[in-house]
């Protein structure tokens, strides 16, 4: 089983972080994983994206051209990557910032009002974790508990007090699509 995922959004929305958490979580489950960021001139202009591969086999190309999972935190990211998603794939997008999405044949599309849900939890900045939670609920790419363990590793110690909040956001997103 191989998951090929693109996470994309504005700089500052935490898309690189959720990509790293996916990869780290996969590693903690004993999988082969890669995380590859857009970098250099691509990062100018305010958009960021990263490719994540989680697999039972050694990973070949770390660059995902035809994802089976897309996390889009804003409109431009959705526009750029949605048509690349393979049939049978999943798109989870932040409907707080994107108005309408036309259907794509064979692709499951899930709207998550991430900013509103994050605000309900008391912090706008965790909208990325809400979307990630929903993505995990739909794809089971890695377990929520693995992401929670990964947070300990990926976040610097001075941010560890935020882990319970991040965890709540993850679970909120997860339950949104599974209940």
């Amino acid at each position: 089983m191989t998951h090929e995922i693109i996470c994309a959004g504005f700089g500052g929305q935490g898309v690189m972080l959720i990509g790293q958490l996916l990869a780290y979580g996969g590693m903690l489950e004993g999988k082969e994983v890669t995380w590859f960021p857009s970098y250099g001139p691509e990062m100018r202009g305010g958009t960021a994206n990263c490719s994540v591969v989680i697999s039972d086999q050694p990973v070949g190309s770390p660059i995902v051209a035809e994802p089976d999972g897309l996390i889009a935190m804003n409109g431009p990211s959705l526009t750029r990557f949605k048509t690349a998603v393979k049939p049978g794939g999943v798109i989870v997008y932040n409907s707080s910032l994107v108005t309408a999405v036309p259907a794509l044949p064979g692709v499951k599309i899930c709207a998550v009002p991430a900013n509103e849900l994050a605000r309900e939890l008391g912090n706008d900045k965790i909208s990325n974790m809400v979307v990630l939670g929903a993505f995990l609920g739909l794809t089971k790419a890695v377990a929520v508990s693995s992401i929670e363990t990964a947070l300990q590793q990926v976040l610097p110690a001075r941010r560890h007090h935020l882990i319970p909040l991040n965890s709540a956001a993850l679970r909120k997103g997860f339950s949104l699509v599974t209940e």
Partner: protein
Amino acid sequence: MERVMMKGNEALAEGAIRAGCRFFFGYPITPQNEIPEYMARRMPEVGGVFLQAESEVSAINMVYGAGGAGGRVLTSSSSPGISLKQEGISYLVGAQVPCVIVNVARGGPGLGGLTPSQSDYFQATKGGGHGDYRLLVYAPGNAQEMVDLIGLAFDKAEAYRNPVMILTDAIMGQMMEPVVLPPLREVSPDKPWATTGKKGRSKPNLINSLGIVGEDLERINVELQAKFARMAADEVRYEADGVEDADLVVVAYGTSSRVVRSAISRLRQEKKKVGLLRPVTLWPFPQQILAELAAAGKRFLVVEMSAGQMVEDVILSVNDRAKVTFFGKLNGTVPTVKEVYDRIMSLLPEGGEE
């Protein structure tokens, strides 16, 4: 063994520290900045030296001084910066000073771009600076090899008293992958040739590449060539995956080998007989295995992120015994899995399917 996620550049830097490297001289250039930045943080923790030089030229000459003085020394840069270092690299070889040089390559020529490229193969394997010389050149295929090969690179550099190059690219440097880090090694400074101050020696030590009398220069070159011959005989490394029963062998290194691997795994699901030959040393080049595969009737596809550089070594290795096809990408772009898949399909013999 504990796996940790690291960027290739950082894995390489930590690998160097763990291999006993205690001196780093470099200059900022994208896409290798994670290496000097990591070293700036890490070297003080292990009692080492990080120094940002005023230029690439100064950095490589600081390496010459530190290596000549017996230090385990590293520098890193990216393509235009490596061009600037070429004079120094030639002197390092001529004076037989060990060191490791990392090229996290980007597209050229000229200022080029910041995107990944494999267009520095000629420069790395066929010289680059002036004079008759070779570097041992390693091409890591994943973050773990960034760690493992840099450790090996220091040992080989000192064993042969020759610079060793790690040729990688922006993808390998920026990508995060799990790695298992080796323990911190202590290395014994047993270098009787190093300039340390005479310290009671009857004769002073000299680090020098000047052979101003004709016979001196010939003697130096004969000695160097004998060393390169030993390296060519003993240091070839490659990975062969399913080449024995393959109809087509794809030859690729570094990032392109990963794309090829993805394409091959799809093809194998469709029962196609395709193998991968991945050179780990670009010099010395794995000529022997390619010659044997050619003699066994294989055909070859070479995939590179360049206009075709390594393909020349493949052609030389098979020496007219087999057909060699090339697929390359320019402009600092990476071939997609589908492009490589399609190219391989177009080359498979009719009836290639079982």
